[in-house]
C-alpha cells in the first residue's frame, strides 16, 4: 500500500510502506494506515551551527525501533519562531505503549518538540512549522484536524504543577466537565480511578473537596497526572514533570510512570539522565534543535553510535 501524503507546508513526500506492522490496538482514532518515517532530507546550511553539529544532519535511529508500532510519527519536522529556527528536520516515531524520553542540553528544542505534538505552540505568535507530524495516521498540522479532540487524546503534564484554583475533585474531573458530563456517579468513579491511577487516592480521599492549592508540590504534580489520565488519553506528554520537585516526590512520580507504562504511551522530556535511564524504554537525544540519536535507552547509555551522544551521556558537555 503506497500512498502520497501532502504535509502542511512541505513538498509531497513518498511514504514508505509499513503495512506489515500491527495496528496499535488502542488508537481508536486511527483511520488510515500508518506511515513510517519519510525520507530524510539533508538540512540546509546552518551557518555558525555547522561547526558543532558537524555534517551529521541525519538522525541515527537504532533498528530496535523498527519493530515497534508508532503512535505519533514525526517526519522531517521543523519549527520556526519568527526567523529563528528552533527545530531542524526532526524525524522520530513514538512507539506505542512504551516510555520514550527526550534528553539533551537546555534549549535543544525537546520541550518545543513535545509542545508541538499537542499543538500548544499554536498559542505563540509567529510560529511556523514544516514537515509533518501524525497521530493515529492523521496529520496533526492539517487544517481540518480538530485540535480540541487532538488535545483530548494527548494528555500533558507540565514542568511546574498547574492545578486549577478549585477543589481536588473538580481538578480531576475537569476534562469531563468540559465535555459536559454532569452525572455525579460517573464523575466520582472517574475521580477515584484517576486518583488511584496517580497513586494519590489514599492521600487525598478524605479531602477531595478541599482546594488543590493546599497540596504539596509532589501531590500537585500527581494530581495533574490524575487530571491528564482522567481525560483517558492515548498518549501522555510530560514536560520535565519532576524538575520542580524534591527527590522523594520525584521517586513517587517515577514509580507512577512505571505503573502507567503499558497503559499509556508516554513521551517524557527530562533533564535528568538517571531518570531517563531508570524509567524509560527509548531515549532520543536532541542537540541544537536536531534529533541526533534515537534508540533503546540501554543502548543509548552503554553504546551510543554518535560522538555527540556519547559526550553528552558521559557528561562531557551539557
Amino acid at each position, binding site marked *: 500500500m503506497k500512498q502520497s501524503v501532502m504535509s502542511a507546508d512541505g513538498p509531497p513526500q513518498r511514504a514508505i510502506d509499513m503495512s506489515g506492522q500491527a495496528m496499535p490496538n*488502542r488508537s*481508536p482514532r486511527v483511520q488510515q494506515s500508518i506511515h513510517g518515517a519519510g525520507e530524510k532530507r539533508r538540512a540546509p546550511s546552518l551557518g555558525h551551527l555547522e561547526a558543532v553539529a558537524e555534517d551529521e544532519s541525519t538522525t541515527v535511529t537504532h533498528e530496535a525501533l523498527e519493530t515497534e508500532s508508532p503512535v505519533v510519527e514525526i517526519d522531517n519536522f521543523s519549527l520556526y519562531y519568527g526567523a529563528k529556527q528552533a527545530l531542524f528536520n526532526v524525524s522520530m516515531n513514538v512507539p506505542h505503549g512504551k516510555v520514550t524520553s527526550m534528553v539533551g542540553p537546555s534549549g535543544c528544542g525537546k520541550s518545543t518538540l513535545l509542545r508541538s505534538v499537542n499543538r500548544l505552540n499554536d498559542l505563540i505568535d509567529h510560529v511556523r512549522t514544516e514537515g509533518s507530524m501524525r497521530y493515529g495516521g492523521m496529520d496533526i498540522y492539517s487544517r481540518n484536524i480538530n485540535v*480540541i479532540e487532538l488535545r483530548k487524546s494527548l494528555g500533558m503534564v507540565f514542568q511546574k504543577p498547574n492545578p486549577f484554583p478549585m477543589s481536588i475533585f473538580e481538578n480531576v474531573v475537569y*476534562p*469531563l466537565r*468540559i*465535555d*459536559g*458530563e454532569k452525572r455525579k456517579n*460517573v464523575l466520582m468513579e*472517574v475521580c477515584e*480511578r*484517576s486518583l*488511584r*491511577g496517580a497513586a494519590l487516592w489514599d492521600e487525598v480521599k478524605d479531602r477531595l473537596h478541599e482546594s488543590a492549592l493546599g497540596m504539596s508540590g509532589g501531590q500537585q504534580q500527581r494530581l495533574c497526572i490524575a487530571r491528564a*489520565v482522567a481525560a*483517558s488519553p492515548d498518549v501522555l506528554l510530560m514536560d520535565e514533570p519532576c524538575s520542580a520537585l524534591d527527590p522523594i516526590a520525584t521517586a513517587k512520580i517515577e514509580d507512577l510512570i512505571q*505503573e*502507567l507504562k503499558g*497503559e*499509556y504511551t508516554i513521551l517524557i522530556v527530562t533533564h535528568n539522565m538517571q531518570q531517563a535511564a531508570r524509567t524509560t524504554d527509548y531515549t532520543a537525544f536532541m542537540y541544537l534543535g536536531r534529533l541526533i540519536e534515537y534508540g533503546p535507552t540501554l543502548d543509548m547509555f552503554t553504546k551510543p553510535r554518535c560522538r555527540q551522544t556519547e559526550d553528552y551521556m558521559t557528561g562531557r558537555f551539557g
Partner: protein
Amino acid sequence: MASSTLRNPRRSSRPLYQKYLRFSNGLFMGLCVASTLLILAILAMVMLYLLSRGFTHISLDFFTKVEIAEGMAGSPGGMSHALVGTGILIGLASVVGIPLGMLAGIYLSEYSSNSWLGAPTRFIADVLSGVPSIVVGILGYELIVVPVGNANGYAGALALAFIMIPIVARTTEEMVRLVPNSYREASIALGATKARTILRVVLPTASGSIITGIMLAVARVAGETAPLLFTAGASRFMTFDPQQPFPSLTVAIFLFSTGPFKDQQQLAWAGILILIGLIFLLNLVVRLTVHRVQSRRFAGA
C-alpha cells in the same frame, strides 16, 4: 491502577454536546469581538457628535468676547472669560498641587522604606483619587467659601489642587522609582547628600516622565466641573481677581447647556470641543513621549 475500563464515558463521544461546544465557543468569541466593536462605536458616536456640533458653532467670537446676556445686543457673545478663568484656576491649582504632590511622591519613593508613614500615605493617595469630586467641592465650600462669605477663585483652585495632589504624588513616586539605584549610589559615593542626590540626579533623570504625569493631572482637572460649582462659582465677566466668583469653561458649559437659550447651548458645544481638544492633546503628548514606560495611563475626568 488505571484500568482500561477508564476509557471512556466521554469517548463514546456525544456529537450533540460537541456541536454545543463549537457553537458556544463561536458565540462567545463573537461576543468578545462585538463588545469591543460596540465600545469603539460608542466612542466614535460620542466623539463625532461632539466634534461636529462643536465645529459648527465655533467662531472667532468664542475666543474674543465674553458672555453677553440673552436679549442684549451681541448675545450670546463668547467664552473668552471662561477660557482665561480655567487657565488661571489650573495655574493656581498647579502652584499648590504640583509641589505638594511631588514632595509626597518623593517621600513615598525615597524616604518611606523604613517609615510607618509610607504605606498609609500611598493607600490614602490611591483612595483619594477615587473620591467623588463633588465632595471635594463641598469641602472647599465649607473650608473657604463659608468663612470668606462668597464664592471665589482661590476656593476653586484649592479644590482642583486637592484632586491633583494624589495623582501627582502617585505618578511621581512611580516615575522616581524607575530611576536605577546605581544612579543614587554613584551620587552618594561621590559624597553627595541624599537631598542633593534627589535634586541633582534622581529628579532630573525622571523629569520627563514626571512632567507627563503632571500633564495628565492637568488634563484631569481641566475637565472637572463638580468641584467648581460651589467653590469658584460662576461669573459672566472677564476677571483676574481670584477673590471674586470666578468663571470656568466647565461650569459655563454646564450652565449654558442646561439653560433655556439655544444660542448659549451652541456656545456650550463649542466649549466642549475646545475642552476635549485640549484634553486629547495632553493625552496624546503623554502617550507619544512615554510610550514605552507608561503607555496605558490616562487622566480620567
